[in-house]
């Protein structure tokens, strides 16, 4: 337990005192490494022995008793926070170097970086509602300042303000849920909430609804995902990797923790979670196809993967609601394993995108191409990340997806028709999502790293990125491969976290260990067969070099290649009604045309149809109250005077 306190203090102290130092990033990397070890030791102990431990301390005032409870679920998320935090710090060392060279001050940025990691760790640790909200707010505000690193650019500022507003709407819903239970149960402790909900199950639906909406906005589920595609491209890449890999998982942690408090959710709620998660997954991947900004594409993919995690959670909830232990265990283990996998390959992909931006200074993939020649390590790591996120064997995305498929098939064997239809449509939906992800990532990898350079920005890249950036990417890629071929050890290691939701001993009985064993062996064999084939082929190489066939044209032009938009255009033609495509075109005119250009981008249809009209209406309504805020100093002093008089009158009246 002291390890945990030491880790928290270390994170905070190094952040506060060392961030203004000249070699701050190096000190921070070292400190975060030590803190990671300090977090890993108790986490591993809790996961292996499944004995949660507690520390209570008393804070004065209304907060009262603050229990820090560290059980297997918290340990799982704590490991993700610590490891990804450390790797992001190492990456930041290389990424921030150009900014430091240009004398931009990164001191406060690093302070908020460490406080973000510390706050995320606290969020998974505390079990007192008010302290949880305090840590949650520290997390939101730190990430806000991290996103606004380059706030001199107007789009970055706009994105950070939008992010700020979304985060506070989400906190409002969470506060509503906690306040409801606090008033009813009279205590702020999560354990007391659980007791109360066990005795009065009629409140569980409204409580789960409020907290699911709140945590869902943070995680990035469908109707409220709009902050993700703006905040992630605006933030620097180490922050995007950390946010997308870990911070949106705290939303998932919140959902899971509230579910553990309730115990058995109602079927209606489970079906709605499944439905919304499926729609998020489909929507995310569909919009990712249409993007040509590399980080915005990755942000929409985060929405898709959160949807896949949500489908796993939905299956688990349906298992709890209908009392089908196999569905429960397999569904939650698939979801949690996908949380782990997503944090690894998403951070890897964001770090790769950051490496590309670091070298070419553009995120627009239409201007890139052929980077694999000059940046081989980045290319291989990005390729591993791309194959992993599509869920292809032998990497880790495949294992979690096939666990979710397995759980759905097991659930469908049941005789309940509504359950069968819902699971079958999610099954087909997940298959569709997987295939669209293949389309999207062949585009992302193929246009950026393959082929020839489409513009000078890409041609002028001389070498690969610095060692710190490369090493963090290589470590993450290695994790992808290891978890992909040895999932039985990983699942065996984490199995106690899945046990939070099922009855005692259920996990041991129902975890599909044989199935995971088979999948392990198959992935390992596939890896070995591919490697052996490559080695054998390497012996028989008899190559000659010549230009590709260009239909008889003498010089192949890089403009002859497919662009990202043309690659997906045939698919987008079929799904045209689901997008709003804005085209900016100036056609060539006159006999000797001087200038012509064409640009297109896709806008989020849900934002245009649902969110923006509501915002416009609010703005119109609030304009009427503009008269109260007219900047007139005398009027503000008058407000203060009226307030004082009112207070005086009310106190006198209360006395009488």
């Amino acid at each position: 337990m002291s390890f945990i306190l030491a880790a928290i203090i270390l994170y905070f102290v190094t952040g506060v005192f060392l961030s203004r130092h000249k070699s701050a990033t190096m000190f921070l990397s070292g400190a975060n490494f030590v803190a990671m070890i300090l977090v890993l030791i108790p986490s591993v102990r809790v996961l292996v022995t499944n004995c949660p431990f507690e520390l209570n301390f008393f804070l004065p005032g209304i907060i009262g008793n603050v229990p820090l409870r560290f059980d297997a679920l918290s340990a799982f998320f704590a490991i993700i926070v610590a490891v990804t935090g450390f790797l992001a710090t190492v990456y930041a060392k290389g990424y921030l170097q150009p900014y430091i060279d240009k004398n931009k001050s990164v001191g406060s940025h690093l302070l908020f970086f460490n406080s973000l990691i510390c706050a995320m760790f606290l969020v998974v640790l505390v079990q007192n509602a008010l302290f949880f909200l305090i840590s949650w707010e520290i997390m939101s505000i730190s990430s806000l300042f991290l996103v606004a690193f380059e706030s001199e650019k107007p789009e970055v500022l706009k994105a950070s303000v939008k992010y700020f507003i979304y985060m506070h709407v989400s906190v409002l819903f969470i506060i509503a849920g906690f306040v409801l239970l606090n008033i009813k149960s009279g205590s702020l402790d999560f354990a007391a909430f659980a007791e109360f909900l066990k005795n009065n199950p009629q409140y569980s639906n409204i409580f789960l609804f409020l907290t699911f909406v709140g945590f869902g906005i943070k995680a990035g589920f469908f109707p409220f995902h709009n902050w993700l595609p703006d905040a992630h491209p605006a933030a620097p890449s180490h922050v995007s990797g950390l946010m997308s890999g870990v911070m949106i998982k705290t939303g998932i942690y919140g959902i899971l923790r509230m579910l553990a408090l309730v115990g058995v959710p109602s079927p209606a709620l489970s079906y709605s979670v499944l439905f919304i998660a499926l729609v998020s997954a489909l929507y995310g991947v569909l919009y990712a196809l249409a993007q040509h900004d590399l980080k915005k594409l990755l942000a929409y993919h985060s929405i898709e993967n959160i949807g896949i995690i949500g489908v796993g959670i939905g299956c688990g909830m349906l298992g709890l609601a209908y009392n089908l232990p196999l569905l429960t265990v397999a569904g939650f283990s698939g979801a949690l394993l996908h949380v782990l996998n997503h944090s690894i390959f998403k951070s890897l992909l964001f770090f790769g995108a950051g490496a590309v931006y670091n070298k070419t200074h553009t995120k627009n993939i239409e201007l890139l191409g052929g980077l694999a020649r000059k940046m081989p390590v980045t290319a291989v790591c990005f390729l591993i990340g791309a194959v992993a996120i599509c869920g292809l064997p032998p990497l880790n995305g495949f294992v979690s997806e096939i666990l979710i498929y397995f759980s759905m098939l097991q659930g469908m064997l049941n005789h309940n028709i509504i359950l069968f239809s819902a699971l079958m449509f999610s099954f087909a939906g997940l298959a569709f999502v997987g295939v669209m992800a293949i389309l999207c990532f062949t585009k992302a990898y193929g246009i950026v790293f393959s082929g020839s350079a489409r513009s000078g920005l890409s041609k002028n890249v001389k070498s690969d990125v610095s060692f710190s950036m490369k090493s963090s990417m290589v470590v993450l890629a290695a994790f992808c491969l290891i978890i992909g071929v040895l999932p039985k050890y990983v699942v065996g290691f984490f199995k106690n976290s899945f046990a939070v939701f099922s009855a005692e001993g259920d996990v041991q009985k129902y975890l599909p260990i044989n199935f995971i064993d088979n999948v392990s062996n198959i992935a390992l064999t596939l890896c070995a067969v591919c490697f052996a084939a490559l080695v054998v082929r390497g012996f028989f190489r008899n190559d000659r070099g010549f230009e590709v066939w260009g239909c008889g044209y003498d010089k192949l032009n890089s403009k002859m290649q497919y662009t990202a938009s043309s690659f997906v255009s045939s698919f987008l033609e079929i799904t045209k009604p689901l997008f709003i495509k804005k085209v900016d075109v100036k056609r060539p005119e006159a006999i000797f045309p001087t200038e012509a250009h064409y640009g297109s981008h896709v806008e989020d249809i849900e934002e245009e149809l649902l969110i923006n009209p509501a915002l416009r209406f609010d703005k119109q309504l609030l304009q009427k109250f503009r008269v109260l805020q007219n900047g007139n100093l005398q009027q503000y002093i008058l407000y203060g005077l009226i307030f004082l008089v009112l207070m005086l009158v009310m106190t006198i009246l209360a006395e009488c």
Partner: protein
Amino acid sequence: MNVFLFLMNLIFLAVLPFVMLGVIKKTKAFWGGRKGPGVFQPFFDFVKLLKKESVISPQTTFVFRIAPTVLFATTLAAACFVPLAGGFTLVDVDCAFVLFSYILGFGKFLSIIAALDTGSSFEGMGASREACFSTLVEPAFFIIAGSVCIFTKNLGFESFSILNSFGHTFSLLIIPAAVAALFIMLLVECCRVPVDDPNTHLELTMIHEVMILDNSGVDLALITWSSAIKMFLYSALIINLLLPSVLPDGLNCLLFAISVLLIGVVVGTVESATARLRMLHVFEFVFIMTPIALVILAIAVIKMYRGLA
């Protein structure tokens, strides 16, 4: 493990894909009033390609070099899951159809990137079309395979052969629909008319052929063998739905081989009888699989309802 079946299937895997290609060409020649190349010509082409050198463009990166080999390795790995002659499966595991699709998907992923790697507009076009068409096939295949698995309460590929001997009237409704859908899937994934014309090299009509335009030598040999094996595997799935599984081993192997060649003749006839569809209509053609899959799903639901009531 039945050694006889294992050896027969090894021989079939080595021989039948090429013979199937030869049979398809012979059928098309027959319908065209020509004599056509010999049935064993693809073997000679394969051996000829093995002796040639590979021409690699300096424009390409490492992906172009590894993709054909990995494609071949993944196709062989996928062949381990499909029940071949005599219902023999090398690896029998739950959710086999998910493993089958995703392992083939890995090979497809790398071949699409390798096509984009050449930096030529031809390969980009083929890559884009190949990626787009396969998106429409997967969900329908998963619905069909999932419904068949739930219908027969068996989660592996064995469910396809069990469906045959189920004795339930509904299986007689499912089998023709599933065969039709799987046949459309064969036409799409193995790039046959009316989806793609494997003979022409006109850019208007190419999908798979144009993706491999710049591969040569051993790479091209491996790619050709991989596509032939893929067609063989999809035919094996169709045959599993149709052939009764309770025959003795030798007869089963003979019937399997004859059925594979028969499917080759049917594919050849379809290729001769229809013209390649316009690109837009290809999407509609591929999408026909989805309503068929929903019909099979509805039949499975009705069976469950009847079982409940």
